[in-house]
């Protein structure tokens, strides 16, 4: 169950309903607080102590850590729950691509460009990669700093600096002043030096140990000095029975965090890139890396470092991230109405779909992608996909009739033909009865619309 409720938050507010926070009531302010759309500082009627108590109460059990700076800053962690249905997950997993200081200049450029150019349009959102991770394969500070230099000039996003040697890390930090990089990693052997560096250069600090007790011990030591910007790496064993241990470890850490074990209340990271060690089959390794990346994205990793730069291998990660970080409390929907694509005229086809975001954006991007000239009727089907809406009767003849009337479609076209998705073929008769229009059952998938129109329209 959710850790805190709106009622409990409300209990800590002044209950004046004075609207100074921009909300109608204290209760709606409480909801906004829980959704992180407002902060305790937005209510002027709290005393210092009350505010402290409120902050303390609403601070998520998994600490939120920021890396990168300016527009490129990302936040990770900050989670409240173990399962998304208990509330929602707030900060999407950051995806970083691996660069080594021993790679050729061309390969490094290729990797920078991969992160900069990768972009998928899905459901009205643009999905991108977030960060670059630079590791000191050579162990040489000079080599490392010159790689960091090259990367930092071309890439303005967050950077992870990886070496267990403080002097190597410092050579990179000097170049990344004010960019809030992430240092990887503090260990039992080097943590004091790494902590000094993190403080001196204002960086976040990854803490690595494959033993949970040592990990908790390290964060206890470090937090005792007042430093809290930590990320935990409990190590990832990707094959054999190590995988079971890793899954256990990640789950135990997140679960402990939710149970307010504060030593473990930091975001987790995972490095599926380790799979590439000793691998000789590029495709199989990219495949497995992506697969494992998805497993640990679901099992609580807030930062993932990948080596593969195959477009197809990154795609599942970005898609999964979009899926599991959506808000389970609402159906994602768009406005209904009549939309035009290209330059339609009185003979152009009229297509019908629903207002579920995924459906609308999929259809819409297809119509645009193929430069079609047409009208699209987006029916208010309570945000359901085509076949769900058919099953619930939220897509039906009367709704389509009303939409035709209200949108003025009849003045735009001189024919009376509607094209509906194949999955709505069941309600063809109903639509014809209610609207008086002819209904043509279109293809199953909206990407097949161009081919279909070529064959069946004029």
């Amino acid at each position, binding site marked *: 169950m959710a850790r805190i409720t709106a009622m409990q938050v409300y209990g800590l507010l002044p209950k004046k309903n004075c609207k100074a926070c921009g909300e109608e009531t204290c209760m709606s302010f409480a909801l906004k607080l829980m959704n992180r759309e407002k902060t305790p500082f937005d209510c002027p009627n709290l005393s210092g102590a009350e505010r402290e108590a409120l902050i303390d109460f609403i601070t998520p059990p998994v600490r939120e850590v920021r890396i990168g700076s300016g527009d490129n800053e990302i936040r990770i962690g900050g989670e409240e729950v173990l399962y998304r249905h208990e509330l929602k997950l707030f900060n999407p997993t950051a995806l970083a691509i691996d660069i080594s200081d021993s790679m050729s200049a061309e390969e490094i450029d290729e990797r920078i460009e991969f992160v900069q150019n990768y972009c998928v349009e899905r459901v009205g959102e643009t999905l991108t990669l977030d960060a670059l991770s630079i590791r*000191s394969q050579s162990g040489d500070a000079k080599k490392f700093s010159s790689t960091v230099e090259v990367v930092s000039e071309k890439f303005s996003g967050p950077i992870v600096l990886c070496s267990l040697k403080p002097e190597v890390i410092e050579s990179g930090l000097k170049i990344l002043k004010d960019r809030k990089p992430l240092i990887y990693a503090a260990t039992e052997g080097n943590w004091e030096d790494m902590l000094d560096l993190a403080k001196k250069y204002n960086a976040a600090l990854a803490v690595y140990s494959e033993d949970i007790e040592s990990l908790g011990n390290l964060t206890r030591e470090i937090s005792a000095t007042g430093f809290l910007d930590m990320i935990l790496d409990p190590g990832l064993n990707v094959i054999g029975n190590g*995988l079971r241990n890793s899954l256990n470890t990640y789950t135990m850490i997140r*679960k402990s965090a939710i149970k307010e074990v504060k030593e473990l209340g930091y975001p987790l990271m995972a490095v599926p890139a380790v799979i590439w060690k000793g691998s000789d089959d590029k495709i199989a390794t990219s495949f497995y890396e992506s697969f494992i990346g998805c497993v640990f994205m679901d099992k609580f990793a807030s930062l993932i470092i990948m080596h593969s730069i195959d477009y197809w291998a990154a795609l599942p990660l970005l898609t*999964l991230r979009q899926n599991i970080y959506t808000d389970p409390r609402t159906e994602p929907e768009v406005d209904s109405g009549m939309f035009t694509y290209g330059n339609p005229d009185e003979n152009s086809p009229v297509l019908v779909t629903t207002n579920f975001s995924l459906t609308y954006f999929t259809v819409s991007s297809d119509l645009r992608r193929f430069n079609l000239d047409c009208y699209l009727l987006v029916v208010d089907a309570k945000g359901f996909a085509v076949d769900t809406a058919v099953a619930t009767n939220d897509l039906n003849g009367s709704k389509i009739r009303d939409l035709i009337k209200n949108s003025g479609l009849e003045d735009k076209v001189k024919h009376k033909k509607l094209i509906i998705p194949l999955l709505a073929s069941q309600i063809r008769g109903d639509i014809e009865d209610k609207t008086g229009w002819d209904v043509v059952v279109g293809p199953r998938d909206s990407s097949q619309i161009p081919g279909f129109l070529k064959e069946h329209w004029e």
Partner: protein
Amino acid sequence: MKNLEDLLEGADELEIEDFVMDVDEIELEMFPQLVLGKARELKATSRVERFSFKKPVDEYISEVMEVSIGPRSSSKKKITIGGSNMPALCFFEGDMPNKPVVAHDLFDMALSLPSSVKQYFEGVLDDPAEWAKKQVNDFNAEIITLHLISTDPNWRDTSAKDAAKTVEDVLQAVDVPLIISGSGNLDKDPEILEKVAEVCEGENVLLSAVNPMMDYARVVKAAVKYDHLVLSLVSMDPAGMKQMNRNIMKEGLSRERIIMDPVTGALGYGIEYSISTMERIRWTALMGDKDLSMPILSGTSNSWSAREAWLEERNWGPKEFRGPLWEAVTGTMTLLSGADIFMMLHPGAMKALKNLINSLFNESGEKAPAYREWINMEVK
């Protein structure tokens, strides 16, 4: 403990050997990192009390039902799934006596399969019995799903008798347990599945699927009469699933002869709904709700409804890789959410998921690369 702290008080440099001599073994066990560490660390650890970790184990009052498919008494093989007493894959909280299982899909007619799947089955696509043999012999199927899609009135509208013949051929051809699925046509499936139940008497097959929108009682009664299992299908709705299960039991089928299909949405096309539905169902079962304590089936091949799996799109990279990866990830997400059995299509995706399951159950001898060296690894 006191002892040790006293020892360290004021000690700037301390050789580990010197120190070991002064503490007894118990204390050393409590401070394992001391043995590895340098003197400087000793000083630091003495400031803060050492963190001790307690596994976050919860109490659960119930468990998932154990269910077997395949003849109860014969030399033929059978599989058993379910029985877990912990949230999905939380091995630190309990155990899972039976490994999750992958069921290999095959169809009674050559339908429009994705080309990247078809290539594996050229030559047997028109012969379900041969197709079944290939699944068992070449792809190590432990259980197969025969989809009788040709019975759909909107396709070939083949008869219940034709379907029975196909089922008998497949039963003859292989000795693994079967899931037998109708076409999904709500009007025709009851008739088809009833006939299937009859010809499969004694085989203890899983009849797929019954849902609230069809004459499910007819199928359930046949399952009772001929001793089979049924798959209870309700789309992403735990309350509806509970009701369906109760209705099935009202018709006389016992609890341990039901498997649930809460519907698997493809990655990118509803997987998050499946994840949350399965997690909720599993949680409810552990909290004692017997009506939701059956094992969960994941219709993983639904992943092929995602265009990322099959669309020819050069920018996205070869669909030959995308498709199986999409299916493998879709299946894995349901595994992580509580599914016990997976209906799957692509041999590559099945292999990936099976490997994962084997690793999780400690059956893979492979050694993981040493993680701590990833920083200086060389990638060829």
